[in-house]
């Protein structure tokens, strides 16, 4: 049995997967983030990408490792106030929104993250936001976005727009939040979050489709319109020349 129909069905299904994947992978249509709870400072947004560079904290890791997956219905003493839970800053994941452009190497990527101060002190922190391609090529960075005066229990959204994000397919948006080096004598470490999104390379796909159509057209018309040798076999005769009968 010919496999061509099966391949056709499979390619159609692959196209469906390709069209469906961005919705699964990117999740870009995010609603505008609102600041909740006590929000005296509002949203800290920087629209001018700063020169590259990652804000890193030199504080050694002192936080406990991830053990919360195991059930721990313990009776550990602790305060009941929500800001007394372990940790200093709690963050959300990265939210992204891509605004396409007619320029194949244009487009704007909005990257944001929400930070919550879980202590009973005012905290000053900073955030570094960037995006990179699948191969790790930086597409833009905004370093040292100040998150100043984060009050106890406050939830604040930090975001930036990265310009010139081309249609490079899979992209990785990443945010690093650097808390103070120490707080009450406890050394702290930065928190990193990332998110993958898919920016379909429409121009490249169109180019490939045009090249495929051109190749098919050339192949088809070369077969149909190619000059036949004089006296040679015609199409449909099985390769044999017609018999010539001379009376």
């Amino acid at each position, binding site marked *: *049995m010919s*496999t061509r129909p*099966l*391949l056709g*069905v*499979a*390619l159609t*299904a*692959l196209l*469906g*997967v390709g069209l469906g994947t961005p919705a699964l*992978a990117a*999740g870009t249509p*995010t609603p505008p*983030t609102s600041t*909740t709870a006590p929000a005296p400072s509002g949203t800290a947004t920087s629209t001018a990408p700063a020169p590259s560079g990652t804000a890193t904290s030199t504080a050694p890791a002192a*936080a*406990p*490792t*991830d*053990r*919360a*997956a195991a*059930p*721990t*219905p*313990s*009776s*550990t*003493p*602790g305060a*009941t106030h*929500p800001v*007394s*839970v*372990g*940790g*200093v800053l*709690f*963050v*959300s*994941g*990265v*939210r992204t929104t891509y605004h396409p452009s007619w320029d194949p190497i244009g487009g704007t990527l909005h990257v944001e993250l929400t*930070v*919550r101060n*879980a202590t009973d002190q005012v905290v000053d922190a900073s955030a570094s936001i960037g995006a990179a391609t699948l191969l790790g090529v930086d597409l833009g960075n905004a370093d040292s976005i100040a998150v100043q005066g984060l009050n106890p229990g406050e*939830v604040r*959204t930090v975001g930036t727009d990265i310009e010139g994000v081309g249609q490079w397919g*899979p992209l990785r948006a990443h945010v690093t939040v650097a808390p103070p080096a120490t707080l009450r004598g406890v050394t702290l470490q930065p*928190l*990193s*979050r990332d998110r*993958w999104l898919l920016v379909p390379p429409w121009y490249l796909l169109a180019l490939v489709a045009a090249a495929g159509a051109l190749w098919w057209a050339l192949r088809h018309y070369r077969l149909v319109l190619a000059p036949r040798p004089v006296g040679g076999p015609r199409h449909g005769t099985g390769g*044999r*020349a017609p*018999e010539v*009968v*001379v*009376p």
Partner: protein
Amino acid sequence: MTIAPPLAHDDTLVLGTVVPPPPPAPRASSRRRVPRWVPRDRARATAGASVAAQVARLLAAALLALAAYVGIVSDLEHAIAQDQLHRTLSDQLAAGTAPVSEGDVDDVLLPNGAPVAQLTIPQIGLDETVVEGTDSSNLAHGPGHRRDTSLPGQAGVSVVMGRRAAFGGPFARLEELSPGSRFTVVTGQGKQTFEVIGVRYAGDAAPAPTKAGESRLILETARGPAFVPHGVVRVDAELVTETQPRGARYTTFPTLPPSDKELASDTSRAWALVFALQLLVVVAVGAVWTYRRIGPRQAWIAFVPAGLLAFLVVADQAVRLLPNLL
């Protein structure tokens, strides 16, 4: 007078009459399709390349079809399962028989896949019925409650896992939850409201352990690009409504099956995959036999549905071997 010039080959030119062409030369054996002037080693190489090309085509078709199953058909399977689970849970809630422990109302251990809660997170468009068990088969139907943990809203820690991309990807947008966001879980003990503490990766500082009488819910899914998981992301949430009493649990963490843990695959039904592959081979052989002996139309009509059915059975079993949070 007939003059028959000495023409060779198939071209027969005669004057005055038609001379029948000489009988065709005996055809080569059907096994030998390579022209005679091709050296033997080259003929073998050509035949080998042809077989390799056919195998590559079949493998590519199988992989593409498997990708189509994971990306498209699995979503339908998940939607159908959710519809049935939601109806079952609604009936149980109305009758007051929804489970509040690891056993049902008759104290019989809950089977894997039984509905236990309704999880609603409007911020990310999530409204799913949670099932009991977290292996790959259970998470194909919806988010799963890990057996060794409390039910959401009960005292202690409750863990609910969900897929990120395949089978509807109910937890695809889980990371978008902000600290302070609230969502609800409806169980047999009523409506429980949780507030998000934060999103956590492996190695991050975990919230302090719960005290006696407190309840926490941990939502887990895969981290990384869709269909390419490389870690686990957790969302911690604390109960802000009244804590419910904890139901009896017979499964403990040491007795939890390995296939119920994060990013685990389920190999317990690999035997079913073997039988499914045998079914696919039988269907393929039958299709080829029908194509050659009876006709192409009959083969297409009879074996396209059978082939699709056999492939669905194979894909359904093969997907069980993939990570449960995929």
